[in-house]
């Protein structure tokens, strides 16, 4: 079968193809997700894999508090993720901190740190002592500098890093199912 001869004016061919396209009405959906959408869902999922000791919850306020220390990178994503969700019958709420000192007035159970740790660690460390707060971040080196869980963006996926000893020191118990999926570091920082 002799192939049909195609003219060399390839631009004309491209224009011809455009004319043949039909426009459909279904909306297109993105096939990959924005970084902070996925991290927001991770934070929400983390809650189910960690056990807090009972005294870390204040009886008067039936909330599970997620704190963000530093500028908010989530936009509305975290709000959408935890909306209408509860943990052991406690509603999840989000609190924003600009300074570690605020942790004394309004403690939380999970703290997402977006300020550079080297800027704030000594202060933060003293506020975290005697409290069972799960510290989470997405900065390189977080678990080696004292943090507990890191959602590290590598390439175009998220990699979990966990410092088990830091978590244990705060009285937190992390499920082995989660540990198996993470790069686990065990040195007390």
């Amino acid at each position: 079968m002799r192939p049909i001869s195609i003219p060399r004016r390839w631009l004309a061919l491209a224009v011809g193809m455009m004319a043949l396209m039909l426009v459909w009405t279904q909306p297109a959906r993105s096939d990959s997700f924005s970084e902070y959408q996925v991290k927001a869902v991770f934070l929400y999922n983390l809650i189910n894999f960690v056990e807090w000791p009972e005294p870390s919850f204040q009886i008067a306020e039936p909330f599970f508090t997620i704190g963000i220390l530093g500028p908010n990178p989530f936009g509305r994503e975290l709000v959408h993720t935890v909306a209408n969700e509860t943990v052991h019958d406690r509603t999840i709420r989000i609190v924003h901190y600009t300074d570690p000192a605020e942790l004394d007035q309004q403690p939380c159970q999970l703290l997402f740190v977006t300020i550079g740790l080297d800027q704030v660690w000594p202060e933060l460390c003293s506020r975290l002592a005697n409290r069972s707060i799960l510290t989470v971040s997405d900065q390189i080196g977080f678990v080696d500098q004292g943090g507990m869980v890191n959602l590290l963006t590598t390439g175009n996926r998220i990699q979990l890093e966990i410092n088990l000893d830091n978590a244990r020191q705060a009285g937190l118990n992390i499920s082995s199912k989660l540990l198996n999926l993470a790069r686990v570091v065990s040195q007390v920082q």
Partner: protein
Amino acid sequence: MILWVIMLPISTVAHADARNPKTVEDPTIAYLKGLSIEALLKTEITSASKKAEPLFDTASAVFVITQEDLRRTGARTIPDALRMVPGLQVAHINASTWAITSRGFADWFNNKLLVMIDGRSVYTPLFSGVYWDVQDMIIADIDRIEVIRGPGATVWGANAVNGVINIITKKASETQGGLVSVGVGTHAQPLVEARYGARIADSADVRVYAKGFQREPFETTDGSDAHDAWKSMRGGFRADWQTAAKDDVTLDGQIYDGEADLALDLSGFVTPPYSRSLKETQTVSGGHLLSRWSRQWTAASELMLQAYYDRTHRNQVVAEEKRDTLDFEFKHHWDPDGRHDVVWGLNYRWTRDDIVGTWNTSFDPDSRSDNLWSAFAQDDVMLVTDRLWLTLGSKFEHNDYSGWEIQPNARLRFKPSADHMLWAAVSRAVRTPSRSDHDIRVNLASGADSLGNVSVFRVEGNEDFKAEELIAYEAGYRWQPDRRFYLDLAAFYNDYERLRDIQNGSAYLETAPAPPHLVVPQLITNEMQGHTYGIETLATWKPADIWQVSASYAYIELDLHSPNTDGSLPPEAETSPKHQFQVRSYLDLPWQLHLDSELYYVDRLKALDIDGYTRIDLRLEWNPTRQWAFSIGIENLLDDAHTEFDDRAGVNASEVPRTVYGQATLRF
């Protein structure tokens, strides 16, 4: 699909929140919340600024070999891994040599494929091809291999006529800790890989590695030793820094050394015996150093600067080549408003060689320094929001052989819905002349008549050899209705002009070396032209989370003509298999076992008198703990031995044998 996304939040929410009816359930968030943590870890994300084009949205015939594919198919070298790419022809010539081709023109020295490792071009300008025996690294540290069949998009370098293979290694931060892997087997014993990665400073990671192996010879068709044993050693490192100012710096280097035995049948001598069989050893050594800096300048703008130095020293018995290459590249990616996505860049490459020839093969001049200047620009325009995109781009290049070359292309992407993608492209691509085309001299064959007059057939390079030209018309379709099924179809019609051909020249007498002999020149010319067309199909199906099956079929037809072959088809028209078919299966079994199998069928190569063959590979892996992995595998289960290609450049082809191997890997 929409219905499923709506049902999900209803099933996960414990109770409706009547206090806050304004909270709208975001379908994407709802979908993500429905995933397990394992699935979340595998989800691909795009950083706010970088526009990562998922595979699905690419307007080219692209296939990505993932790290999982590399592990499951038991690939121990890069050519092994490339077999699974739909439409790619991978033929093992002898233990250390392969002919790897995309869309026709199969040859050891296939010159229409651009191969890059981490942004460094690894094809040699000597003949515009790739020495596969020196491209190697720790397979477990490869992140992915992207293979584009067809002219590379404008952003790729020279030579990307029929395809681009881009091997991308993992960042140093992704290969922390130690890895030691030892493999043994028939024909590949032993193989040792060792790597250690560590964080050396705040946001700076490095890995160092070494790899060595030794392969025993294959056999010839009559069962004797093929004299093609191969051994190789290499060591290298990669370091990545990420500074607070959003700078990404990478430094990577490697040195290697190896040798391969060659069984050669050379002819062209002026004294008897006119044909000689030689058993020699070729030696290769070299290394490279690459540095790259990129910065996210603003949310919409990213810059990249890269420089590398590459050195090779190759003694291939018929000629010895030393080559230095320096390459500088600048790239700017600009995404101002979401409607235009512009990439443009500049590249300068300098390469210098020193070739010591032999009677059989020599180059004139024997030392040469070449400059390559190129610029490219491309704009990806969204014509209809989230539906239709048009990419227009071109590469402009000036090389020392054919002067200015322009390679424009236009690509169209149409997404009627999230599950379907249609694309079409028209491109002009150019295969610039290589040093061989202009300067080579090969005494290919010789003989004496009854009176003792000697004639020598000599392939002669041609200073006026022009670039080969391709106008490629391609189209494709992808369908992914859900996470379990994926279909990818691609078709192409390639129109070639000025393809390399050999023309008989008028014979002349040559007096030195004695005795005087007649030289019948075989001039390298641009007189072949024609068309090739074909299709490549791939379907991937996950019937269950533990089982994945892929099947692919590729068809190619070559219709080439040359005034120098008296009306019959030139040999290049029949060195590619008309049909190729493969099936792959990855199965996860209980007790941390994984069973993987591949079946490949390659149709016969008519011009080379190579029969079609079927190859079955099996592999069983056991992961008792996160640190240990053990595997055993068989390659070529059905077949004792078969040839996949013919003798090339005097090097004898061997039979590819059945191989049994085992590998143990420890991560700490």
